[in-house]
């Protein structure tokens, strides 16, 4: 079963490059540049992993985090580590990031997650 990864960043090119690199047989990357769209999609189909950029147009990353399902593992991606963040993210990743670091996170999720037998999408 493919893992669903959401990537939210208002910089379109960054989303494009992320999707380009991480889309594979095991991983389905969905990218969003608009926070509200991302929240809506998440509520419809909760992703397995949610990467959220802090500086978005219209709202901050932790506002998005509060708006979606609490059980979804969320990673904060930020260009400014000193920014005050209210939400307790699983991980905080600094921009620019190493793809290997992202890969490790995705892999660790895959191993910790038991394979889904049947059932449907959550």
């Amino acid at each position, binding site marked *: 079963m493919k893992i669903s990864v959401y990537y939210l960043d*208002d*910089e379109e*090119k*960054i989303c494009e*490059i*992320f999707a*380009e*690199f991480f889309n594979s047989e095991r991983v389905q990357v969905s990218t969003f540049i608009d926070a509200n769209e991302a929240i809506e999609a998440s509520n419809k189909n909760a992703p397995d992993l949610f990467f959220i950029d802090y*500086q*978005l*147009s*219209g709202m*901050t990353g932790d506002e998005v985090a509060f708006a979606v399902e609490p059980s979804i593992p969320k990673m904060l991606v930020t*260009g*400014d580590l000193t*920014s005050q963040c209210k939400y307790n993210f699983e991980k905080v990743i600094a*921009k*620019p*990031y*190493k*793809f290997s670091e992202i890969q490790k996170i995705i892999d660790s999720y895959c191993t910790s997650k038991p394979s889904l037998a049947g059932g449907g999408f959550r």
Partner: protein
Amino acid sequence: MQNKFAKFDDFEIFFNMSQDMLCIAGTDDFFKKVNPAFRRTLGHSDEELLTKPFIEFVHPDDTLATLDKIKELRSGSLTGYFENRYRHKNGSYRIFSWSASLDRESGGLYCVARDLTAIRHTESQLHQINKALHNEAIVAVTDSAGTITEVNEKFCQISGYSEAELIGQNHRIINSGVHPKHFFQQMWKTISAGKSWSGMIENRCKDGTHYFVYTIITPIFDAQGKISNYFWIRFDTTKHIELKSIFKKHLAILNEMGSIAKVGGWELDIKTGNLTWTDETFRIFELEPKLGYSPILPEGLELYTEQSKPIIEKAINRAIEFGESYSLELQAKTAKGNVLWVYTNGKANYIDGKIITLSGTIQDIDLRKINEQKYELERMKSIQNAKLASLGELSAGIAHEINNPLSIISGIAQSFPKFLSNPEKLNAYAGEIEKSCDRISRIVSSLKKFSRSSDENNKTLHCLRDIAHEAIILTEAKSKRHATAVSFACRSDALIMCDVGEIEQVIINLINNAIDAVCELPEKWVELILFEQGNHLVFKVRDSGPGISPDIQDQLFDPFFTTKNAEKGTGLGLSITKGILDEHKATISIEQGESNTCFMIEFEKYRTEKNEN
């Protein structure tokens, strides 16, 4: 024994040598004999005197009286001295005093005449002087004991006593009691010793009021050389004394005012070079005000520092020569060696078209000047601090603005192996790298420009449009974060003379304020507008807000005024913004009649950038 002088010839000698005039007048009213004194006194020759009736020589006004006298004499009565006027050859008249006797035998009149012209003239002068004194001055005569024997009308007027009340009184009657005993003792000592005395005396009227008189007392001697009377001549100086007292009071008030306001006055007499100073001027220069001491111009000039002295000298010379007024702030060097800032001004004063004096004020502005300098220092510090704070706020956005392009470059680099074989992808991504690099360069360059420290008074020519563009770049992160569109309608590339860092600071502040102001509104935008209007360059920052209420508008530019809470520091208060613009001779205001909030700045245009092509 024969008296050797009693010869008949001696009488002849008497007759010829006498200074007095001797003559014999006949019954026919002619002179029969005249002595040489006649000729000498009247200038007529003997012949002239003897061939005319003597009445012809008499003054027309005296002829009747003279004829009467002759009749009297002829009738035998003894007459005393008789005066009339006789005509000199030159037409003038001499006053003669006659004594005459009738010789019954011959009927001739034997007369002696004395020329009293000079004496009468002196007497007349004396009389006229006396009259003038009695009319114009206050006159009194006392005996040697000080008892009043005579007073004139003016004495009665000023003292309030009638003549009857004064005559017979001792002079003490008008004493005011003001003068100490020894004052009068000294006076009496002087006049009783035969010397005249003069001085100012305060006397008392009948009704108790006081008056001031300048008094001259002179002793009058009798024939034995003893003092018979004292003559008192006085002049009323009460008004003069009153004016002097008013003048003194005014001077005191002037000095008091000067001392409170710390303003001193000065006057220069151009002819003598003497300076007149008020007390405060002395104080400013740390000199003791000495009564009657008048410094001279060179001394006054010495009280300035080496740098200031030539400036004040030049100003004074120009004022003397051309009547040019001056107004200067200089450094004075007091008598004690202290240096302090003073403000001094001067103007020329004319009498009949000529410059006679210069006058002006001098004020201690040391405290003000020092505070001004302190304020300027603080202001520069504030601007620097505000800039740093501003930088702080910008840095979050800037970090974001740099890290995103960096992420793109980093991402592409890390994905590189994946699309090496895809030339299309390669090209596209190469382009992206370039774009990202440009983005980073732009931010770095804007940052550099912004972080430049503000040099004092270092204004250069800049295009306001370019400054606005830089400001937009630096605030891009914030505007994006708040999803607020910032647009720029630019219709001018005109230049202004300015400190570019400070003006950029001002624009950034206005944009940030606008973004903050609209962040809760449904419609969020900020519009920058730049256009020319006559000699001015107009820059507006408009936002989608509903405007600022009129009662806040007045306070908007006051220091410490804010509608934001303490945490949301914007870095640069509107009061500092206004201060910067004031210094650039630009104005900032809220545009009236606009439904949206609109700040309007007007700069003086320097000149339009010439378009090369």
